[in-house]
């Protein structure tokens, strides 16, 4: 009898403990979610209200009167569609190139043993540790006086023509490094792909070799199609980081083109100069419009994230970083 009572008590204890744990977890997560979503909600709330209400303490989240004028104004000041096109070209182009080149290189590191493989892989990680600002200047010079690695110099000596062209303001300045797996944070992508390929069963390739596939064919037709989660993760990373990157884009896009990072960084100044022309020197107008601009510039990212989110969070469990 006593035994039974103890068992019941034990079970009840366990149940309350479980409930308590999930309650505490829910509370902690609610706070976390709130403070991660807070800036987004703030931007939305600010961007939708009229400038007069920006600092009105009686408006808590929902504005008294909605207006879209912040958005329409910012669209114009930011050159939204221009910045959008530039960011998209760079993000998608470099993203795809990054995926292919890093996967290709990573497969070499994951499945083949060759002399200096370890040294080379250490160098891959090393490239992540050097701040881009150290090499940004020679890189800029290289792109500004681009001679196709000496080929154009030889060509002009033989056949005439310019011995270098300027790639500044040209998207190839972003595509070229990505093509050779040396773009923005490519080392990390190589690392992710290497881990992923190492975790794939060897039987897949053995079967392919038996069928007469060579290593390249095996890579393109067997390994790459099976690496969906890693591909989506790397593409998302690359797209997002190119989208948000400021220093390289500011230099390599030149004076005429802007992407979102550049447009956003100069938004305050741009807005102030435009507002002053219209002789409305109201700082509240600028406050609400900056929030509208920030929201506009991350909107495409949020949409992309919502679409790919499932694969992305899934891949966390499967990439299997060790």
């Amino acid at each position, binding site marked *: 009898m006593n035994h039974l009572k103890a068992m019941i008590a034990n079970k009840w204890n366990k149940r309350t403990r479980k409930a308590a744990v*999930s309650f505490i*977890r829910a509370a902690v*997560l609610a706070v*976390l979610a*709130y*403070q*991660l*979503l*807070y800036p987004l909600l*703030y*931007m939305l*709330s600010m961007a939708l209200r009229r400038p007069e209400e920006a600092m009105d*303490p009686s408006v*808590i989240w929902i504005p008294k009167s909605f207006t879209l004028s912040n958005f329409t104004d910012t669209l114009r000041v930011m050159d939204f569609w221009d910045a959008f096109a530039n960011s998209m070209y760079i993000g998608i182009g470099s993203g795809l190139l990054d995926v292919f*080149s890093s996967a290709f*290189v990573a*497969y*070499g*590191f994951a499945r*083949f*043993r*060759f002399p200096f493989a370890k040294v*080379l892989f250490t*160098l*891959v990680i090393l490239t*992540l*540790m050097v*701040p881009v*600002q*150290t*090499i940004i*200047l*020679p*890189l800029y010079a*290289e792109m500004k006086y681009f001679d196709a*690695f000496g080929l154009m110099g030889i060509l002009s000596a033989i056949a005439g023509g310019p011995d270098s062209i300027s790639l500044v303001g040209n998207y190839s300045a972003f595509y070229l*490094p990505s*093509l*050779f797996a*040396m773009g923005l944070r490519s080392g990390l992508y*190589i690392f992710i792909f290497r881990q992923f390929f190492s975790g794939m069963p060897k039987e897949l390739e053995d079967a392919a070799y038996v069928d007469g596939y*060579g*290593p390249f064919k095996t*890579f393109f037709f067997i390994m790459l199609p099976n690496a969906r989660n890693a591909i989506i993760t790397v593409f*998302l990373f690359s797209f*997002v980081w190119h989208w*948000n990157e*400021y*220093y390289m884009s500011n230099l390599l896009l030149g004076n005429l083109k802007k992407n979102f990072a550049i447009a*956003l960084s100069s938004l305050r100044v741009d807005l102030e100069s435009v507002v002053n022309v219209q002789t409305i020197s109201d700082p509240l107008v600028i*406050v609400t419009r*900056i929030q509208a601009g*920030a929201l506009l510039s991350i909107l495409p*990212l*949020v949409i992309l994230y919502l679409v790919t989110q499932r694969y992305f*969070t899934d891949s*966390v*469990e499967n990439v299997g*970083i*060790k």
Partner: protein
Amino acid sequence: MISRLRSLPYTKKKQWYGFLFVLPWVIGFILFFAGPLITSFKYSFYNMELTPDGLKGSFAGWENFRYAIFRDPQFIREAVNSFVNMFYSVPLILIYSLFVAVLLKNKFRGRGLMRAISFLPVIIASGVLMQILKEDVFSQGLRGGAESVYLFSGAGINGILTELGIGPQLIEVFNNVIARIFDLTWRSGVQVLLFLAGLHAISGDLYEASAVEGARAWEQFWKITLPMLTPIMLLNVVYTIIDTFTDYGNGVILMIYNTAFSQVRFGYSSALAWLYLLGIALFLGALYALIKKRIVNLQD
């Protein structure tokens, strides 16, 4: 060439194929990394000028470095600032992201949604946007504006602290920490992601075996989870340090950039960049030597 490869013995052939796979990266490394890195090293000993036919320089010896260390009023101060900044933000970011990753590991209702929200900073938090957030949103919260009524009403907390008889200096520190909580959580996206991936890579057998032996969750965390997570921990420490040092808002980075492209002092800017890189490398090397023995590596 490929036909000649085919006739080689199997192991030799595999070596060559491995080399061919890695070759694009080797080319890229030489052209877009090693080359520029060496050039920038060379620049740092010159006074560079931008002339119509390209960059021209005159040799200056160690002058650039000497100026940066002994005479530039800004560089050393900014560098010390960014080291101090790193010292408190890196531990906080790591503890926070490990905590969140552990919370998000096990299955519960709404886990998918919470994960999606927690990775949001990876997608959104760029340097430029963070600057805007810091200027407007976060400071707004601290000033006790209408927005913050629900959470960090700074004025309210300040009032309570004053009532409790806490000096204004302590309140200042407290405010700083709160102001940085936002900042830190918004810079922890990638770290949470890496920790979560690491947690999932730990074999479930270890937990089962230890549970049979009578280990509690608390003991499991310290004796299984943490040791097994040390390789990821290393990756995260390095990533976070680099990220803090090369952030958009970092003083030294801004200085290097402005010296080169506003003041057009390319040689001096290169010297600054190299000094900074050297500082970071020395620090990382020392750190690695310190924690190397504690890394548990089950691979190989």
